[in-house]
């Protein structure tokens, strides 16, 4: 059962408070690093046993590996924007100790592999999409807010060889929009030396009309308020692009990484007046981060 539980996220969860959130993360990271500098394979702390166990639910007792970290992303202000800004990104993952960290792409949603053949993995996946506030950016004046969305679905990834991963995520909006999103990616994973890994690969996203229109459609009211023409955004091919990532493992605990993701919006996402008149179809995200791993135990 060791392989079953692995959750990882890289989320921008602080919204408008982004800059203020970075301090506590750095402080926490530093504290953990200082407390268990020589942790190695030892557990950093032990928690008591849970008071009850549910039938059919795996026991949480045992050793766990937690990875915490902080990163930063320089990315478009909103999808379709021509300007970018830097925002902090918390890094967190937890897995059973004894299950090594697996390759993760920057665009991967949080996921759990409930089926794990080694080269073929599958399970549920979820993605948090932060709200888009019209007041935050002048380009959005008159368009109104787009609510926070949460998409739930599943993923399948397959390694035909050790150095190439293909991954598909299919998600449905359950909060916010109620559309469907499919992300396709491939990654060539090249270990340059033992500690240094470089990966690069293509990306493609398909979105349904319900997932596209809240962000790129402009109705009559919005047109009057914003000065943009009415636009009925339909779903379909949403974007293509490429991504690259480099990670360096300093030691068992510390890892640093950097990545760049380029997306070219397609079809109605690219043709929306919001993009053609006030934004850009070229979307580039650059990120850096550092993470620290430690073990803890639940009795």
């Amino acid at each position: 059962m060791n392989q079953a539980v692995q959750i990882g996220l890289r989320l921008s969860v602080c919204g408008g408070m982004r800059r203020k959130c970075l301090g506590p993360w750095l402080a926490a990271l530093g504290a953990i690093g200082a407390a268990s500098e020589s942790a190695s394979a030892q557990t950093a702390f032990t928690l008591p046993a849970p008071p009850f166990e549910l039938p059919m639910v795996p026991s949480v007792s045992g050793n766990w590996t937690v990875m915490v970290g902080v990163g930063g992303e320089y990315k478009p202000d909103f999808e379709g924007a021509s300007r970018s800004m830097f925002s902090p990104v918390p890094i967190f993952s937890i897995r059973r100790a004894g299950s090594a960290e697996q390759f993760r792409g920057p665009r991967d949603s949080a996921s759990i592999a409930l089926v794990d053949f080694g080269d073929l993995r599958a399970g549920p996946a979820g993605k948090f999409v932060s709200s888009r506030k019209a007041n935050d950016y002048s380009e959005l004046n008159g368009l109104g807010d787009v609510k926070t969305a949460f998409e739930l679905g599943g993923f399948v990834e397959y390694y035909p060889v050790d150095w190439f991963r293909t991954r598909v995520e299919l998600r449905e909006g359950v909060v916010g929009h109620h559309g469907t999103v499919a992300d396709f990616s491939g990654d060539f994973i090249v270990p340059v030396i033992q500690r240094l890994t470089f990966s690069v690969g293509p990306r493609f996203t398909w979105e349904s009309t319900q997932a596209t229109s809240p962000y790129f459609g402009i109705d009559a009211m919005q047109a009057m308020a914003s000065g943009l023409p009415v636009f009925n955004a339909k779903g379909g091919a949403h974007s293509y692009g490429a991504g690259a990532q480099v990670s360096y493992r300093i030691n068992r605990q510390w890892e640093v990484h950097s990545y760049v993701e380029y997306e070219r919006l397609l079809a109605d996402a690219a043709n929306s007046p919001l993009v053609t008149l006030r934004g850009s179809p070229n979307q580039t995200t650059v990120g850096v981060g550092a993470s620290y791993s430690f073990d803890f135990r639940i009795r």
Partner: protein
Amino acid sequence: MSHSIAFASFATVVVLAVSVSGCANFATGETKLQAVKTVGIVSAVGDQMSFATAGLTGLNNSTQSFQIGSWGLDDLIVQQATTALNGRFQVQPVSYNRSAFAAIKDSPVAAVNLVRGDPFKKLVQTEVSPQGLDAYIVITKAKSNFGGGGRKVEGIGFITYGTLLSSHNQIHALYEIRVFDGKTFEVIEKRAAAPLENSGTMNLTGPSQLVDETFAPNIGDLSRNEKLHGAITDLIVHSLPSTLSDMHLAAVR
């Protein structure tokens, strides 16, 4: 921000409640072990050795397995564990069907593992004699991902890992230890052997060691490769006492 504070307060209350009730009402594995006097040891780790290529492998992803039963690693494990446990427990020899224990595999589907429970429980009840000891310590192969990709390795093995600029060889002895209650056959403790202190940044989650080309096995004559045999033995001898100690089974290292 008020939502964050409310959530943090709620989380703190939940953690405290779980901690307090966990301390007050429920016996931990450590406390259950205090009642154990007699134990039997089962080992089914070392009957096979795998040879894998990983990393930049071209299109060769092959893993081969070869018999190494003649090395007597399971007997060594039982002997080492007996030495470590004697004093605290009365270790009694047990007979068991080693191949039945070695044949057990986790299902790749997590739900199947949940439904069937611990696969070794029934074997301890039916394949080990004598019954009636206070506890049974079962040492079996553990599994680890390797190289960040989809590759998994288990038990005793030799990996050749290729990178763009170099390649290296690595041996591993991955095993996990379960302690079964001799009356209820529930798992009291379970732990996989951790990486050794000197294993650096190697991406394996159990005892392993980098080795040079001179350890590379001649497959056709594996049983006579004493250098490889010795290195694998060292991994087990160095990791077993500390793993038993971490499980509160043996004296502090």
